[in-house]
Each structure stands twice: as C-alpha cells, then as structure tokens.
C-alpha cells in the first residue's frame, strides 16, 4: 500500500465514522487529560516552590527535575509495571492493564515537563511581583497565586507541553495498559499495532489526529502569547 492509498483509506475511515477509531481517540484524550489534570496542580506547586525559594540542595533538585525530562517513557512503564504487577507493592490496586494504570503513567510522565517548565517560568519572573505582593500584605498563598498569574503564559506552555508529551508517548501506555482494544488502546499504541499488522490506513488516520491535536494546542498557546506580546509592545 502506498502512502497516498493509506491517506485515502484514513479519510475513508473518518468519513465512515469508524467506531473503533473514535473509541481509540476518546481513550487517548481521556487518559491524557485526566493524567494531566491530576499532575498539573501538584507539578505547578512543586515548580513554584523550587523556583521561588532558596534552600540547601536547590541546584540538585533543579538538576534532577531537568534530568527527569529525558527519562524514556518505556522505563517509566517498566517501573510502573513492576509496581502494579500482581506481586508488586501496588498490585492490590489492580491497575495493571487498566485505564487507571495508563493514567498513573501519564501522571508520572507529565510531572517532569510541568515542573521544569513552571520552574523556568517562575525563575524568569520579575522578583518585584513577589516583593510588591509581600509589601502589600499578601499571604504566601496569595503571593504564589499572584506570581503564577503573572507567569501564566509560561505555565500554560508547561501544561501544553505536558499534554504533548503524554498524548504522544507509546512505551508506558503499551506496557502498563497492554493495548487492550476498547479499554487501554490509545492512539500511539494503536498506530504501533496497526503498522505491525500492515493496516496503514488506521495508523495514518490516528497519526493525523495526533498532528491535528498538536497543531490545535500549540495554535492556542500562540494566540494567547500573541495577546501578551501585544500588551507588552504598548509599553
């Protein structure tokens, strides 16, 4: 099958409203978004805490957070597999080969991206924001909210990058989810499977969805950043 044939087949699947295809897209979006929504508040708090405070060992923590960005997802999948397997310490949760397991994987995969990007945004923030908030009687919590609001585009970039990382990863979802049709089969694991079977049309169709999601998310970020830059240019 040529690439053109595969693309034509992909469009045919979309137009036919292929239920299996849409189920895969739904599972992917659901697991990625739930993992991200759970990870984002924790990671943003950690990123802020590291970025805004001086403490012993801070540079080591930053080094570890940034190094975690390079962790292969398949390694995260392996560790999680061992933890969630029947005889593992978290085996009683019975999350292996379930959407909960995939979500746990997405949570762990998203964390370093969210922490590192938030940390970078907070470190780059003008210190006068926190100082002005402090000088006007703000509590620690309000100071944090104020600074995060001022670096909101950086935090949004962190969340969008985190989403990009989880929606496009294959190793962890494959190992922990088991690629079960209708249950844990995500866009990326389905592409891997369909390609190995020579079914390129569904793989191309799912790949197009991934590209569309990436374009949509980054387009939204660019639009938001465009507003911010426009405001700054009026200074």
């Amino acid at each position, binding site marked *: 099958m040529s690439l053109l044939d595969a693309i034509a087949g992909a469009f045919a699947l979309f137009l036919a409203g292929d239920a299996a295809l849409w189920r895969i897209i739904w599972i992917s979006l659901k697991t990625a978004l739930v993992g991200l929504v759970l990870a984002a508040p924790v990671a943003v708090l950690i990123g802020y805490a590291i970025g805004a405070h001086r403490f012993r060992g801070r540079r080591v923590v930053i080094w570890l957070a940034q190094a975690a960005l390079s962790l292969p997802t398949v390694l995260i999948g392996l560790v999680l597999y061992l933890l969630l397997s029947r005889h593992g310490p978290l085996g009683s949760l019975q999350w292996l080969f379930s959407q909960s397991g995939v979500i746990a994987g997405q949570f762990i995969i998203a964390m370093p991206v969210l922490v590192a990007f938030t940390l970078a945004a907070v470190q780059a923030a*003008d210190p*006068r*924001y926190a*100082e*002005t*908030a*402090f*000088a*006007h*009687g*703000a*509590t620690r919590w*309000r100071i944090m909210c*104020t600074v995060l*609001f*001022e670096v909101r585009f950086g935090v949004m970039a962190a969340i969008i990058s985190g989403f990009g990382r989880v929606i496009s990863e294959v190793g962890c979802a494959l190992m922990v989810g088991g690629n079960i049709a209708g249950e844990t089969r995500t866009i990326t694991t389905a592409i891997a499977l369909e390609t190995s079977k020579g079914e390129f049309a569904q793989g191309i169709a799912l790949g197009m969805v991934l590209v569309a999601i990436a374009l949509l998310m980054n387009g939204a970020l660019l639009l938001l950043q465009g507003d911010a830059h426009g*405001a*700054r240019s*009026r*200074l």
Partner: protein
Amino acid sequence: MTALLSIEKLRKRFAAKGHARAHELFAIDRFTIEAATAYVLTGVNGAGKSTLLRILAGLEPAEALAVDFDGQRLALDPYPRVLRDAVGYVHQHPIMFSTSVAANIGYGLRARGVPAREAAAQVEAAMDWAGVAHLKNSDPASLSGGEKQRVALARAKVLSPRLLLLDEPTSNLDGAAREQVIALIPTLIAAGSSVVMACHDSDLIGLPGVQRIKLRDGRLEYR
C-alpha cells in the same frame, strides 16, 4: 515626639565571594523614626539607601539588636505581621500587576480581606487622590512612568500605612510627571503617616518639615 520605630545596632552584611569575611554595607547604632514625621534619606549611590528601605519593608534580611515598633519589642526575622500591616513600600521602579489600574490599587485591600464594597470606595478615593481616576480600567502596561509611580503611591496609600517607604520616587521621571509625584508627597505626610524617602531630588529634600538623614560610610547621620 514619640518614636514609631526604633532599631538598635542595625547591621547589613553581604557574603563577599572569595572572601572569608562578609562585606559590611552599614552598621547603624540607632535608627529612630518618629510618628507622623517625614524624612529624606540621602547618600551616594551604593551607600545602602535602597537596602535600608528594603530591610524596613521586610524584603531583605539584616541583623538588629533590638527593634521597637509603637512600644512593642519585635524581631526583624521573620518579618512580623504587625510591621507588614503597618509599613508600606513603593519600589523605585514600581511594577504593575497585569490586571487593571483599579485592581492594582485594590490589591492590598483584597489581601487584607477588606469587603469588596468598602474596598471599591477606598480605591476610588485613592485614584482621585493620585489623579489617576481616568485610568481606572486601563491596562497597567500602557501607563507612562509617571502614571505608574502615581498608581504605586495610591496602591500603598490606600492601605493607610503608619510608615511609608518611598525608594527614589522621582528618579525615573521628568517634567510634569515628576512635578505631579512631588505634589502628592506633602499630602501623604499631612495624612499622618511617617514617610521615609530615599532620594537625590532637591525639590523633595527641600520640602518643608522634612528631616534629613544621610547614609555615609556605613553610618547614619541625622541633620
């Protein structure tokens, strides 16, 4: 006159890279700010004027033997709540939160839990005082330097601080913007706050009723 704030043996040192001993910026035997009194703090660049104001605002750590505020013995570290409620600080280059002018001025009121209706009335009054009422809903990023300084003064004044610290309030302004800011200072003093201004501006230094203090060679001189 009664002392509003009195600090004994106030010392600021910085760790000097490559040196075993810390660099001492200043060591002040006694620093007293009287109630409802205005001061101009002068000194050459690098004398420590801004650092002294930042210490008083709780933005810099420092060593102090004894701190008395309104008859109450306090410690500077951690910076006590009673000082946070009583001290206002305006940065040399004030930064605006990216909300609106009105929201900027009301920031401290919200932080202190003032009810919305009461806060709105106080913000209106502060905007009128600073002559920025017409900018109420403006994007703070679009303000000129003078407008930002007046908004920052209103943001601090609306909290009715007992001690207001102004770091070079006119240093980055010229012409009408500078004059507008200078015109606000006597009304701040008349409102009953103690005011300490770090500055080089002769018009501020020459304001009637303002006492002069100078940081020279790490010591504080009253004049």
